[in-house]
């Protein structure tokens, strides 16, 4: 984006109009410069976290010297956290919640999107729009009614309450993504499958899901992120440490009164951030592989 803008500006103002090579070099420089700036801005906080997590408590509280440099790197914060059963519990809770939420979200939204995109029934169009509109309602508005509902089900202060609630945040958007992907699959593809002898379910599992895999991965990443990083809902709905996910566990249990175990907080936050990084890195490859190419002419 910035590259193309820059190159146009040059061609309008520069004397060397038509000198494609210098124009291109200019564009590349601008692109690299802005990318480097962006990278520094985005990576500074995690880097600071890493630095802090490798320091001992005494080094952290020592205010002399450059805080960006570790003088005596130590893994003691990590060791203590891993040895702490509470922290391991947070981790397990987060994993259970996220796996369930991703599974529930994907099953519901793929089925919903398939029927909304392909089975033309009365009101399907309105329903599809409705699904998207629910996504536009701010989470914080749903907060109180959901608290009532979860409370009346007796699921407050339990990971099952969270597993019930998160899909209300993920399903609308995932469905919307999937409707887009399914709608972009040429109609002839289902007709060919229909003639080849496929029923609705086979059409979904054998044609739609594999062809729309990039969309499914995008939706999975979204559901994973929402569920792994949720903060407001667990803060309100979970009060005892053994039911807490990582996000609130780290902050609520590692801050004792006004003592902040900064080293452990940073180590915990970094370890919490690790699974998303792994998931992104692993799924991006699939995501980028354009699977729809070659379905039809062109």
């Amino acid at each position, binding site marked *: 984006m910035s590259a193309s803008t820059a190159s146009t500006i040059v061609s309008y103002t520069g004397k060397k109009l038509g000198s494609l090579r210098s124009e291109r070099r200019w564009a590349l420089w601008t692109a690299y410069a802005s990318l480097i700036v962006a990278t520094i801005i985005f990576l500074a906080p995690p880097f600071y976290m890493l630095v802090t997590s490798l320091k001992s408590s005494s080094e952290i509280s020592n205010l002399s010297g450059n805080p960006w440099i570790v003088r005596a790197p130590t893994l003691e914060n990590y060791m203590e956290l891993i040895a702490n059963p509470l922290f391991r519990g947070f981790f397990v809770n987060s994993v259970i919640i996220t796996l369930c939420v991703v599974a529930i979200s994907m099953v519901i939204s793929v089925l919903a999107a398939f029927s909304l995109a392909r089975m033309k029934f009365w009101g399907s169009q309105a329903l599809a729009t409705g699904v998207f509109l629910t996504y536009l309602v701010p989470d914080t508005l749903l907060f109180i009614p959901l608290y009532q509902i979860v409370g009346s089900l007796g699921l407050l202060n339990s990971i099952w309450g969270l597993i019930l609630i998160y899909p209300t945040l993920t399903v609308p958007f995932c469905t919307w993504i999937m409707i887009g992907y399914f709608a972009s699959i*040429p109609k*002839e*593809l289902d*007709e*060919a*499958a*229909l*003639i*080849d*002898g*496929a*029923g609705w379910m*086979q059409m979904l599992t*054998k*044609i739609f899901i*594999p*062809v729309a*895999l990039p969309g499914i991965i995008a939706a999975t990443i979204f559901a994973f992120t929402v569920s792994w990083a949720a903060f407001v809902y667990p803060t309100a709905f979970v009060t005892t440490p053994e039911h807490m996910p990582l996000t609130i566990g780290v902050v609520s249990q590692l801050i004792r009164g006004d003592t902040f175990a900064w080293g452990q907080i940073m180590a915990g936050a970094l370890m919490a951030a690790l699974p998303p990084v792994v998931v992104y890195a692993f799924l991006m490859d699939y995501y980028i592989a354009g*699977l*729809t*190419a*070659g*379905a*039809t*002419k062109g």
Partner: protein
Amino acid sequence: MAQVHLRKVVKEYEGGVQAVKGIDLDIADHEFVVLVGPSGCGKSTTLRMIAGLEEISGGEIDIGGTVVNDVPPRDRDIAMVFQNYALYPHMTVYDNMAFGLTLRKFDKGEIKRRVENAAKILDIGMLLDRKPKALSGGQRQRVAMGRAIVRDPKVFLFDEPLSNLDAKLRVQMRTEIKKVHQTVRTTTVYVTHDQVEAMTLADRVVVMNHGKIEQVGPPQELYHHPKTRFVAGFIGSPSMNFIPARLEEVGSGLVVRMTDRAVLPVPAARTARYAPHVGRELLFGIRPEHLTEPHPNEHRPSIAHFEAAPEVVEPMGMETLLHFWVEGHEICARFDPAVEVAPGKLAAMAVDMDQMHLIDPKTDLVL
């Protein structure tokens, strides 16, 4: 292998649009029938009703002796080739062809035998492990046909399968389709808007217009004996010239008079046929290929001669097209490229009146 019968088939889309207005058609076993007509005439709709992809609003479709109105596509035992091929992008060529058989629970060996046989017929044996995106347009087209062949269905349905290919490949694949049909002999319904494709492929051509069948017949019959003005104009390229003319009696014979200067004698053989229409204003129709340079050795009495100055001359290589105007109507003539003609210069022309047509402008029927 099967016959297909359409009886008073109607398709009405919601909103009251009648795309197909009650057509009757009988297709024999092994026959290759081509539906042809201008865009929007209802060809695809008709084909899709045979396939079961569109509901039939009225009438009856019978495939191989069974009325299939309420039979879903997969139980109709048909195979269809789409304009955009509709190959499954995530499957290899082999799996694309095998998909229908796998769903029908054929055993592995039989599937392999059929796929390999089809691959041999279509000469795509070396592509079986590729994904569709690694194929050229022509190769995708072959795979789409292979998917139909392996099923060994009662009927093949083609919806403009060649229109995404470039001109040269189109001609090549046209021959290929004809060859395949001669090998497998499956009853085929083929939709196209290209009349050359229709003429070259079909045992019988069905010309459709505005949701109705205008005429059904072998290509030669449609060419020589069109029944309506639409068919006369649609079949043949460049299309037939139409000039308003009056049919008059002169002595014992008839003439068509376009202007005072342009009067052409009607062949004696047609006198009886046209006699009831003497004195009427009609449309005189003649194809460009029957309007040529005079041939010195041609002495048939039905050849009439006149002169005209072409305004536009188009050398096509194997022929030269001349365009001139009579009474505000553009006429096209087809000359041997060896004959020297120049725009604006009078050229001698010969009309083969044996090939003339007279059309009643009120009914648009050919007399």
